[in-house]
């Protein structure tokens, strides 16, 4: 009999891998964005708005944000598992973090595509 715990780590390699893939996605996006902004003579609404009017930029921004939210979930879950012992409290925090990150994902789509 295997004792599976819903607030456990699921003991897999997949989360470890996703943590690294999402990190690389975010790192590439951040460096590209920062280099682009440094190359601009000045930062104002025109430059910023023009950048985000591009479909490619919006798409990769959403990819960045979704990678960020998944990355944050794994990171926060690991921290919670290290310091919060009672399973009920752990579960509550996990649920709250998941709901927050799902709401952030919806919000991100609204920011980038809603007007």
């Amino acid at each position, binding site marked *: 009999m295997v004792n599976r715990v819903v607030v456990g780590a699921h003991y897999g390699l997949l989360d470890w891998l996703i943590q*690294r893939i999402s*990190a*690389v996605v975010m*790192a590439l996006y*951040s460096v590209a964005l920062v280099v682009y902004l440094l190359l601009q003579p000045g930062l104002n*609404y025109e430059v*910023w*708005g023009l950048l*985000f009017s591009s479909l490619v930029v919006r798409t990769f921004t959403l990819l960045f944000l979704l990678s*960020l939210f998944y990355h*944050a979930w794994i*990171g*926060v879950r690991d*921290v919670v598992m290290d310091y919060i012992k009672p399973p009920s409290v752990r579960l509550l925090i996990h649920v709250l973090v998941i709901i*927050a990150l799902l709401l*952030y994902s919806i*919000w*991100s789509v609204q*920011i*980038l595509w809603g*007007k």
Partner: protein
Amino acid sequence: MNKRRPKHLALHLIKLPLPGIVSILHRLSGLLLFFALPVLLWMLQYSLRSIETYTQLSSALSHPLSKLLLLCLLWAFTHHFCAGLRYLAIDLHFVRNLAQARNSSRLVLIVSLALTIYFGVKLW
């Protein structure tokens, strides 16, 4: 098993090694960025919605207190970024011994602080 092993918990004698400091700061900066997510998303929203909200945002961010907060977040990001790259390098077996572990940790602390100062000065 001998359960009466001596415990060395003289807190004034033991100290966290450099890689340990980078590790705990990686955690702290990650948590800080997580808690800042709603604020950062709100900033992205205001910066993109219209020129009026963009102007509102930039005047709100020109307040010294919000600049201080941004500076903390800037450090959190650069530290998390540099420490993360170090972990990727460790995964790829680029860090092989204690000396390299210590040197790379020192490098992470220095580079992230330098980047914070560079971007902090640029944004101030």
